């Protein structure tokens, strides 16, 4: 019987030790073989004829991904196999490396597309990797107009042909956003007409800063031809935000200057009661000591 019980207990303990995956300690790579890396390249074309290329480098572990910091990423641009270096940057603690480059002098293909490439040369610990992206440069311009009390955001989209002539960006959807504390709030979306123009009636209930200033972001997102194109502008059409303290006083709020009376009374009563008994106990010990010194009880 004893053996059976010990057997069961040992089995349970072994099972728990093996299966308690949630309590595993962190451990480093077990071997010296280089680890596979994952490189992504994101593209953003901004209104001042430049593009922002951001590469993200990471490795995947059992519990998730790990961003690689201080790795040099080389950016290049060109067509077919002829890539020309356009810059390089080290990755930050998020694993991101960014460069901003002017698109004017970059070599275009027949389809007006420009190819971009991000390359990580590798290291003894990590394998090399590269990522590519192709997009045609385009731009959006934001202007503002008002008619009586109504405000309008005017958008103009354009791109350049192979000879450098500007041609309208037509039938493309442009999204409008305003940044908030944690994310972007979407105002709406408009489609550019044949002339590459569109207007959007600005809603009157968007809260800005204390002066009503707002940042407007207009963008084409993840387009097959143009990638991401974005324009940013500021205007004071928002509702001024008045920062004020709540009129409602709640005594339970952690930031109130003083504790509620009931709490203070409870603490004082409880602590006094307890410490009074402690003092009584110490007094009794003193009496015991005195009784031994005088060799007679003191009552």
């Amino acid at each position, binding site marked *: 019987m004893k053996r059976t019980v*010990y057997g069961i207990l040992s089995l349970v303990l072994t099972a*728990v030790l093996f299966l308690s995956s949630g309590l595993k300690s*962190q451990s480093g790579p077990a071997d010296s073989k280089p680890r596979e890396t994952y490189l992504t390249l994101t593209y953003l074309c901004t209104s001042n004829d430049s593009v922002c290329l951001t590469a993200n480098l990471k490795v995947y572990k059992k519990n998730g991904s790990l961003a690689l910091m201080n790795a040099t990423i080389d950016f290049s641009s060109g067509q077919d196999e002829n890539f020309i270096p356009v810059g390089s940057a080290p990755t930050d603690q998020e694993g991101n490396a960014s460069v901003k480059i002017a698109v004017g002098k970059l070599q275009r293909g027949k389809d007006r597309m420009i190819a971009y490439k991000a390359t990580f040369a590798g290291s003894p610990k990590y394998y090399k990797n590269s990522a590519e992206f192709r997009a045609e440069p385009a731009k959006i311009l934001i202007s503002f107009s008002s008619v009586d009390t109504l405000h309008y955001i005017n958008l103009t989209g354009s791109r350049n042909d192979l000879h450098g002539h500007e041609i309208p960006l037509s039938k493309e959807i442009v999204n409008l956003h305003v940044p908030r504390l944690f994310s972007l709030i979407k105002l709406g979306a408009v489609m550019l007409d044949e002339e590459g123009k569109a207007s959007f009636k600005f809603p009157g209930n968007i809260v800005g800063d204390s002066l009503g200033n707002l940042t407007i972001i207009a963008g084409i997102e993840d387009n097959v031809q143009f990638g991401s194109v974005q324009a940013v502008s500021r205007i004071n059409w928002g509702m001024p935000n008045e920062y004020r303290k709540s009129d409602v006083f709640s005594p339970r709020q952690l930031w109130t200057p003083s*504790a509620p009376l009931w709490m203070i009374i409870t603490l004082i009563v409880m602590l006094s009661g307890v410490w009074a008994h402690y003092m009584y106990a110490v007094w009794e*010990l003193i009496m*015991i000591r005195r*009784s031994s010194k005088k060799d007679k009880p003191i009552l």
Partner: protein
Amino acid sequence: MDNSEKSFLKEFAPCFEKTSVKEYAWIFGLLAVIGLGIYAFLEQVLKGHIVTGMRDNVVWGIYIVNFIFFMGLSYAGALISGTLHLFRVEWRKPIIRIAELIALISLMIGPFYILLCIGRLDRAYYLMLYGRIQSPISWDEMAISTYIFGWIIFLYISLLGDLAKMRDFEELRIPKWRKKLYKFLAIGYEGSAYQRKRLEKTMDIMAVMVISIVIIVYSVLAWIFSVTLQPGWHSTIYGPYFVIAAVYSGSAVLIVAMWVFRKFYHLEHHITKNHFIAVGMIMLVFAALFGYFTFNDLLTKWYGSQKHDEVLIRILFKEFYWPFIFANFIGVFLPMIILGIKKLRSITNITLTAAFVIVAIWINRYLIIIPTLQSPYLPIQDPHTEWSIYSSTWVEWSLTAAGIAVFCLLFTLASKFVPIITVGDYRKEDTKENTLV
């Protein structure tokens, strides 16, 4: 001092007088583990909390688990010894000192773990200077310090009789400074009827105080979690739930400690099978209560189907499935089976069960902290997986091992300073205690 007490002290005298090679090896091993802990601590101080698994999202890890666990052991030791004393339970005499030492030593270790959680240790005293009464952390600070003072007084009163006996036992061959220390600590106690009466009255009062304080103090610790709106923590039963879990784990540690001292100090005729069964029955009752509270807490959450409670329960039953089953099912039912079936009630079985219970309660504490922090109300922006999922590091495990080593070391040293079985309460008739259980 009567003859039975003298012969009893003679039995323990070798333990006070000399340290064997095995004991030196044991102490050296413990010091090595503590040394590793000190190295890990320096690593944390010099490099910051980045060397731990704690991040912005999961801000607490196994340090707070250890804090809750050790403080629970301390409160349980105090509660068990206070209650057994107050109700004059006869079989307490050979084991009450072990319970008292568990309370004291755990109390010396537990608070260190909360300090390890603080990023800026140099600002720890701000809590004293700028702490506000509204904050549950301030309540905990006041409660723990009140408990520390109360427990020191209780323990001192409990030890007084034995300190006097050690002072008066002339055959004891120990250094002079130790004799002087016993004399100083015994404050002239001679065991006269007058002194004994005063001492017993004071001890009764302090036992009542200690029992009340322990219940309040551990409830305050539970409120640190339950007064927040975090999923899993915001529960009205957390106060009693923590107290019950503490006594549950404390009774298990008491059984293991009883086994160790019985085995290595050859106390077979003092600590008998009946003592194991008696403390085991306490463990059994609290296993049932612990299981009931756990079920009660989880059932209401599961039935309520609140969004974040559901996320938490899903994490518990998926990512932490086996630890959850071990802590809350095996950890609860095993004592019931071993102690419930008479044939299985052997000393080894009860001790092994107690060891399981200790691990189960530690994992239960882990499951209270980590899954809740991994399911926050507000998702953090662009979370790195390693930031949102807690994974403990060697630094944290080293400091955990060091805490256990300090516990064992202090127990070893304490047993060399005072008899591990209360001499003051030991009388000839006590040998009949086997029939009392």
